[in-house]
Structures are given as structure tokens and as C-alpha cells.
């Protein structure tokens, strides 16, 4: 029974992730691609060696982009659905839809925005190919730290709630999260490999479009998955209510 519910939620999470990925793909294509093209034009104007094109720009900006964004959506949708199965009924008095939306907001913050503020998305021609190993390690480390700190803050909030009340406990846990993230920012090395003559406007627009993609992805995921999860779970709630009533009667 429980296993069936978990499977149903996992499948719906991946489908909601796919749907959210389609919307994010539209945003990536309309807002992001012009910036990528402009950055590649800058790169080509400044480099004298011409690399062999393995995959054409036409494929990279359509089918390639779609592969990346859709698989990203499905994979994170699946993980988010599993996290939802854990969070449901454990993070406070929230129903399925509210839990889904809260979880999506937390995921946007912990998986994307917090790492982004330290190591933001970069367009082509920003970044030294020789440091790709270090930059990748630092980025994934920041992402892992941020997710772990968000989980720790949630647990802290739940522990404090009986003493401080829900509101104050949430504020205290959020403050602890901000302080811990600030410490991580302070101790992890900075990366700045933007070429001196790279357009500031282009960099800003590229990063804004990168944020827009994530905002659309997680908003759509929270709403779609919340709706689907709500339809999977009412049967369970009724069963639980019947059990409670039976227990009370005996």
C-alpha cells in the first residue's frame, strides 16, 4: 500500500519534472539562446584557433538544449518526489499541495540560488578551460553544502517549534541557515575568470535568463506535482481517518 503510493508519487514527480522542463526549455530557448550566441560570437572574435565543430550550433541550441533541460527536469523531479515522500506530514501541518510548493521553493533556493550567488552561471568564453576541474568541484561542493544546510535548518526548525512556536522557530532556523551559508561563502575560494573586455550587459542578461529558467522550472514543478500528489493522497487520508476513528472507538 505504502510502496504503491511512493511509486505513484515518484512517477508523477518525474512527469511533473518533464512538464516543468518543457516550460523551462521554452524560456531557455527564447531568453537564454540569444545570450549564448552573442557570447560565442565574442569568443570567436577573440580566439585565433578555430576548433572543429563536433555538434553544429543548430543542433546544440535545439535538440542538445532540449536533452539537457528535459533530463535535468525529470531527474530533479524524481529526486524532489522522493524528498516529498519524506517531507509529507513531517515538516508541519501542510497538505500535499502546500508541501509540494514549499519543497519546490526550498529546492530552488538550496539547489540553485545559494550555489549561484557564490559560483554564478557563466556564458561561453567566460572561464579558463584549465580550471574546469576546480570549478566543477567547488560548484558541486557548494551545492551539496547548501542542500545539507537546508535539511539541517529544517530539522532545527522542527526541534525549536515546541519551545518557540512555529513562527519564531522558522525565523531562527532561517537565520541559522543564512549564517552557515555566509560562513561557507567566506571560506570557499572565489572564482572570477570573466575576460576584461567581456560585455557586462551580456553577462548580466545571460545570468538573469539562467535564473529565469530555474524560476519557471521550480514554480511549474511545485504547482503541477502538488496537483498530482493531492489526487494520489486523498484515499490515504480517508484510510488514516477511518483508522483513527476505529482506534478511538475501541
Amino acid at each position: 500500500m505504502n510502496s504503491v503510493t511512493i511509486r505513484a508519487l515518484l512517477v508523477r514527480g518525474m512527469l511533473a519534472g518533464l512538464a516543468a522542463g518543457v516550460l523551462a526549455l521554452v524560456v531557455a530557448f527564447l531568453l537564454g539562446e540569444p545570450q549564448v550566441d552573442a557570447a560565442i560570437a565574442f569568443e570567436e572574435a577573440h580566439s585565433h584557433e578555430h576548433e572543429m565543430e563536433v555538434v553544429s550550433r543548430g543542433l546544440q541550441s535545439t535538440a542538445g538544449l532540449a536533452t539537457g533541460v528535459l533530463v535535468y527536469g525529470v531527474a530533479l523531479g524524481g529526486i524532489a518526489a522522493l524528498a516529498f515522500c519524506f517531507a509529507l506530514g513531517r515538516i508541519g501541518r501542510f497538505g500535499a499541495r502546500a508541501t509540494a510548493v514549499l519543497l519546490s521553493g526550498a529546492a530552488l533556493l538550496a539547489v540553485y540560488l545559494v550555489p549561484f550567488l557564490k559560483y554564478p552561471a557563466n556564458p561561453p568564453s567566460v572561464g579558463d578551460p584549465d580550471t574546469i576541474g576546480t570549478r566543477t568541484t567547488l560548484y558541486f561542493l557548494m551545492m551539496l553544502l547548501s542542500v545539507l544546510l537546508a535539511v539541517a535548518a529544517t530539522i532545527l526548525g522542527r526541534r525549536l517549534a515546541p519551545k518557540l512556536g512555529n513562527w519564531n522557530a522558522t525565523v531562527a532556523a532561517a537565520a541559522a541557515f543564512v549564517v552557515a551559508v555566509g560562513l561557507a561563502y567566506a571560506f570557499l575560494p572565489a572564482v572570477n575568470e570573466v575576460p576584461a573586455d567581456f560585455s557586462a550587459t551580456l553577462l548580466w542578461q545571460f545570468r538573469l535568463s539562467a535564473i529565469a529558467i530555474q524560476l519557471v522550472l521550480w514554480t511549474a514543478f511545485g504547482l503541477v506535482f502538488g496537483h498530482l500528489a493531492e489526487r494520489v493522497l486523498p484515499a490515504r487520508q480517508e484510510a488514516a481517518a477511518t483508522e483513527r476513528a476505529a482506534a478511538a472507538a475501541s
Partner: protein
Amino acid sequence: MAQTIAPPATGAVTPAPLPLKALAPWALFFGVLMLVLLYFIGAEQGATSLLSGTDVHEWVHDGRHLLGFPCH
């Protein structure tokens, strides 16, 4: 007598937690599978390579930049 005690109103809105024992195998197997997918989208043939060549890197190139992963 006890029958007159109705379950709290919030009981209908707050779903019961799913047991961790039922969740663990799903979380382990599918969690790892999803992370492998993310690895191929985000980092394969960039910082580390399981497959030789640059085909994967070049194919997901634009997605990698726009999703915030360090690409090259």
C-alpha cells in the same frame, strides 16, 4: 463514549507521514539513478570523463551553460 471524540479537524488536511522503511529502497535506487542522469547532463566530459571523446559535452553544451554548470 469515546466515539463522540471526533478526530481533530487538521487530521483531514495533514496527510500521515509515509513510513521510512517503505521509502528507503525507492530513495536509494531511484535517488542514485537520478544523480547519475544529473552527472551526465552536468559534468561528464567536462571535469571528469567516463566516456572518451567530447560528444556528450558538445551535445549538452548549451544546456550546461544555461543550467549553471561549469562547462569548459
